């Protein structure tokens, strides 16, 4: 049930400061779209507008349209809480709930939204942990605290927690930047499996990673600090990395810049 996202003329603000300007793009379903670009260019900001997490920050607001299979996420009658159930998110640093066990962490999204049926919860926990390639490592210690896992395991726990609520889209904000290469590989393999079922958008600073995991790549850039970030181009990953249409993209990819 993966869905397609269409962004048109999106301006993003922090208070009066325009952080990102004029983003228009289409994100394909059942594919991985990578956002790359220098620090501060607004890629994470754009990502956070896709599930209305941007407005959690005081002063955060948005102009323009984000359509999820044709439905405007920013229409007046849309509940941001509902949007976030449909569009899940994994963060840069693993953030399991410290008071909860591994089992409760995975079930948190359902439990906190009122699901009480224990058999159903157990089933979801197993399915999600298997989906996140973590089941074999933790199946014997589901009632231990989630914070006791290693960094890479914690991140996969967070992915399991995100897919347990069965979102249509999964947003990942530099999910591997706090992990070692082996854990990174595990997450990348997982992303490859997950794209069969979900629309995935990943922000990354690692261009090899973007090249390895994504089907489509968007390059963001900004003219100078204090200026709004812009989408330079979005295209298939092979084109972006081999034959980009913009000079700025080529400079960035080849390391002559940024």
């Amino acid at each position, binding site marked *: 049930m993966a869905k397609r996202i269409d962004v048109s003329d999106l301006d993003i603000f922090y208070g009066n400061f325009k952080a990102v300007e004029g983003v228009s793009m289409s994100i394909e379903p059942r594919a991985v779209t990578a956002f790359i670009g220098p620090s501060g260019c607004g890629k994470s900001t754009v990502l956070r507008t896709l599930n209305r997490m941007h407005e959690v920050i005081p002063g955060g607001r948005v102009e323009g349209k984000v359509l999820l299979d044709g439905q405007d996420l920013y229409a007046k009658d849309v509940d941001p*809480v509902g949007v976030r159930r449909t569009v899940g998110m994994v963060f840069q640093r693993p953030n399991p*709930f*410290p*008071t909860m066990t591994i089992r409760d962490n995975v079930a*948190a999204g359902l439990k906190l*939204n009122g699901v009480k049926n224990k058999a159903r919860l157990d089933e979801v926990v197993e399915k999600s942990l298997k989906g996140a390639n973590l089941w074999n490592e933790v199946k014997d210690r589901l009632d231990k605290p989630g914070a006791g896992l290693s960094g890479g395991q914690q991140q996969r726990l967070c992915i399991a927690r995100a897919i347990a*609520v069965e979102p249509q889209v999964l947003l990942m904000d530099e999910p591997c930047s706090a992990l070692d290469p082996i854990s990174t590989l595990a997450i990348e393999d997982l992303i490859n499996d997950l794209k069969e079922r979900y629309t995935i958008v990943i922000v990354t600073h690692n261009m090899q990673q973007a090249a390895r995991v994504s089907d489509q790549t968007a390059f963001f850039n900004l003219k100078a600090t204090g200026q709004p970030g812009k989408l330079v181009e979005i295209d298939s990953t092979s084109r972006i990395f081999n034959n980009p249409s913009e000079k700025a993209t080529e400079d960035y990819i080849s390391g002559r810049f940024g």
Partner: protein
Amino acid sequence: MTAITNDFPRDHSLAEPRDLDLGGKSGGRALKNSIATFVMWAAFAIAVIPLVWILVTVAVKGGHLILDSTWWTNSQQGVTARREGGGAVHAIQGTLIQGLVTALISVPIGVLTAVYLVEYGRGRFARTVSFMVDILTGVPSIVAGLFIYAVFVNAFGFQRSGIFVCFALTLLMIPVVVRSTEEMLKLVPNELREAAYALGVPKWKTIFSVVLPTAFSGIITGVLLGLARVMGETAPLLILGPYTKAIATDLFGGNMATLPTMINQDRDQAVTLPAYDRIWAAALTLILLILLLNLLGRLASRFSKV
């Protein structure tokens, strides 16, 4: 204009090998060190001597009474100042009951105020609330007592009773609970809130199911420390809570003994009378009670997850 080059002006003297001079401890610095150390220890001793003195005095003068089991089982009913015997159970009960009821009123108000200030409060109203909490922190306990007296006894015509003592103590406890809870809530990483939002959990549910449990042990510590503070308060009790020698547990009518008022009761008796020793024993009991709460508070903070 000089062209920018990579050639920094090089001071070649730096590169030449020099004798390594780590220096011995020079006399002047060693002396300063000794003086500073001495001053530090002296300050520490000055701070600790009165504390130890009080504890020892109270323990020596009251210790023998609280070791007697009747101290923990009997009241002072029928015991005059000239007679030995009797216990403090009436006062201990009163202090615990009033402390508990005070906590039951202050904790929800204090914790919810802190939740408002940290999670929701923006703009002028939040600043006003925060400022009011600061002011409340500075209100002397006798003013809190007089305020409740003026409102409930003078204006509404109620009799003085235990519940009004609790009201006055609540005024003193709320700011302590608000401030400590606020600090604990601020320690909860924002990432946890965002993680819950990203799962489609509404904000209020995030606060109750993720933020408050994460800060729970810290909040408990703050509550116990606040409780320890108000249980030693005396001024509001003198104004609102008349002493009685009998066991009395009715907060809504009649007199009710507490440890501070028990201490106050016999303080002008002659040093030779048995009542005099009971003052010290009551003081020791109060110190032990508050110490116990403090220890519980520390214990709770040890299990803190933040």
